[in-house]
């Protein structure tokens, strides 16, 4: 709030600007606009190329807007069953993975924020240590493989559960939550205790509602990282019907590019093979684009570096 006033006062103070200020302002508008276009361009191009006709794409005529509009590329992506199986796998992983990580993080962060937790310094340390030192690729890989075998022996053949259960927890997010819980006034907690609430009630009825913004931010971080996760899912998920979206689009686009560079572009049909790749990309980022307007107001919480200290 104070910052907003600062900014406003600063601008109001500039009613009579000298030349260097005016020049700087014009340059600012110019560069900032260019940068925003730079950020958007690849995405706009992807949409345009996925909608353009075969000659336009193969001939490199598409620069900004679609040429010879066709929607057959999208139609074929929609008919591609395997793509949508992987899509639903990613939805599954994002949904259960986010709930699971949030549950672990909120419960853990709440307990760690309590000074009366015996050994809370030690437990905080083993959490933070995972941010300093991580086991390398090979031990992590072997550990996931072992987990996969154990889950398989337990009768859980669905390897999506491996991705949900074993991956994605982040110590940084737990610390964000812990700090936010620590900032809840002691008196409110005392009052709830006097009223006879147990710890679970205090947490869910007092602490969670008071830390809504941080919880939303952390859920967003988890959700986006689950949706976008690639490497470990690619290395550990064997069943082709359990592979998540990112793994599938990576391999499908690689195949398309290989075909184009080895055998040349296809010259018949309604759309170029790259359009199919672009259409898959567009489908993959649509959910992010849809929730983006609602989540962007929470960004500032996550980067508040002052909030992250022991």
């Amino acid at each position, binding site marked *: 709030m104070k*910052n*907003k006033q*600062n*900014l406003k*006062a600063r601008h109001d*103070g*500039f009613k009579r600007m*000298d030349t*260097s*200020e005016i*020049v700087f302002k014009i340059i600012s508008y110019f*560069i*900032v606009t260019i*940068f925003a276009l730079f*950020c*958007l361009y690849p995405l706009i191009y*992807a949409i345009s190329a996925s909608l353009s006709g075969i000659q336009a794409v*193969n001939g*490199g005529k598409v620069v900004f807007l679609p040429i010879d509009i066709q929607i057959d590329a999208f139609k074929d992506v929609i008919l591609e069953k395997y793509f949508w199986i992987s899509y639903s796998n990613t939805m599954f992983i994002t949904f259960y993975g986010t709930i699971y990580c949030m549950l672990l993080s909120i419960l*853990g962060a709440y307990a*760690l924020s309590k000074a009366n*937790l*015996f050994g809370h310094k030690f*437990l905080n340390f083993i*959490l*933070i240590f*995972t941010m*300093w*030192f991580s*086991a*390398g*690729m*090979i*031990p992590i*890989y*072997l550990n996931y493989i072992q987990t996969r075998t154990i889950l398989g022996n337990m009768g859980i053949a669905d390897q999506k559960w491996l991705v949900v259960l074993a991956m994605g*927890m982040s110590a940084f997010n737990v610390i964000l939550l812990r700090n936010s819980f620590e900032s809840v006034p002691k008196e409110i907690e005392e009052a709830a205790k006097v009223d006879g609430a*147990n*710890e*679970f009630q205090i947490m869910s009825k007092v602490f969670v509602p008071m830390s809504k913004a941080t919880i939303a931010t952390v859920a967003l971080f988890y959700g*986006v990282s689950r*949706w*976008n996760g*690639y490497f470990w899912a690619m290395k550990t998920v064997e069943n082709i019907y359990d592979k998540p979206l990112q793994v599938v*689009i990576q391999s499908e*686009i*690689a195949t398309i*590019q290989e075909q*184009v560079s080895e055998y040349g*572009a296809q010259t018949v049909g309604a759309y170029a093979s*790259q359009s199919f*790749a*672009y259409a898959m990309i567009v489908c993959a*980022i649509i959910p*992010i684009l849809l929730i983006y307007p609602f989540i*962007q107001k929470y*960004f500032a919480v996550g*980067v*508040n*570096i002052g909030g992250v200290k022991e």
Partner: protein
Amino acid sequence: MTLASEYEIENLEKNYWKNKGKEILKDWQIYVMVIPLVTFLILWKYFPISSMVMSFKYYRSDSSFGGGVYTSLFIGLDAFKVLFNSADFWTAFRNTFVLSFYGLVFGFPVPIILALLFSEIRNTGYRSVVQIFSYLPKFISTVVVTSLIGLLLSSSSASVNAGVIGGIFERWFGLTNMLSSPSCFRPIFIVSGIWQTAGYSSIVYFAAIIGISPTNYEAARIDGASKMQQIRYVTIPGMSSTLTIMLILRMGSLLKIGYEKVFLLQQQGSVGSTYETSQIISTYVINNIMSNGNINQGIGAAADLFNSLLSMFLVLGSNQIARRVSTTSLF
């Protein structure tokens, strides 16, 4: 005031654990709450850390030479000897530093400049629209980013024209086959990195800039400072603590390059074509050791251990400096 007698003190000491036990029983709920988190950490963070003993063992994924990670043949530092004698490893080691160093030199100033420019935009509506667009790439997955790079930078062949950006470089600079050329890897990695994160990273600097009191600018203007002088003498000092801590934290994560993106970018060119500049320690492990069960996996674990220890020292060292310089620190 009476001092506690020796007997009483002894009694207190005796009862310490008894009382502690009672306390723990009374607060059993918070212990139940922390169990899932601790279980996760043990199973999927600390168990692999303990498996790193395999860097001193002869472990192969086909389970010859004694089977599991703990039971396989102990060979001491032999894996490290093999590693340090391998030219590929040192290439990867050098590339790790060079890539992060370039990332630091070119990537670090961009969000600061952006934040400066954002703070100049007076029209709040326009500013937030522009800011929201510039944060967007941060949320696009690495796979989509590298696939887009692959498609946009593809070179022309007999029947198909180059990708829209690759075409520009082909026509104006005569660069062909950029994705497979080692000299293009670093620029591609860094520019796409700026595209991904610069907007989002500018948030923290923007917050620092708008936190500066407007009276400072008033005073500077009355003294006849031009815009550049205002930036030099008001804005930069005003955001210096943020600048320092971000710089130090960045130094701490010098070895933590996103291996996923490097790995995926390597897939875009023909196999192995860019390794001389693109191979970093993590991808060295992925490409040479993880995918080849027939060699001693301990060598990979040794490379991992080396990487993890080095990056831990960097993180802790820079955190220590941050504590000295600005009282704020990450940990």
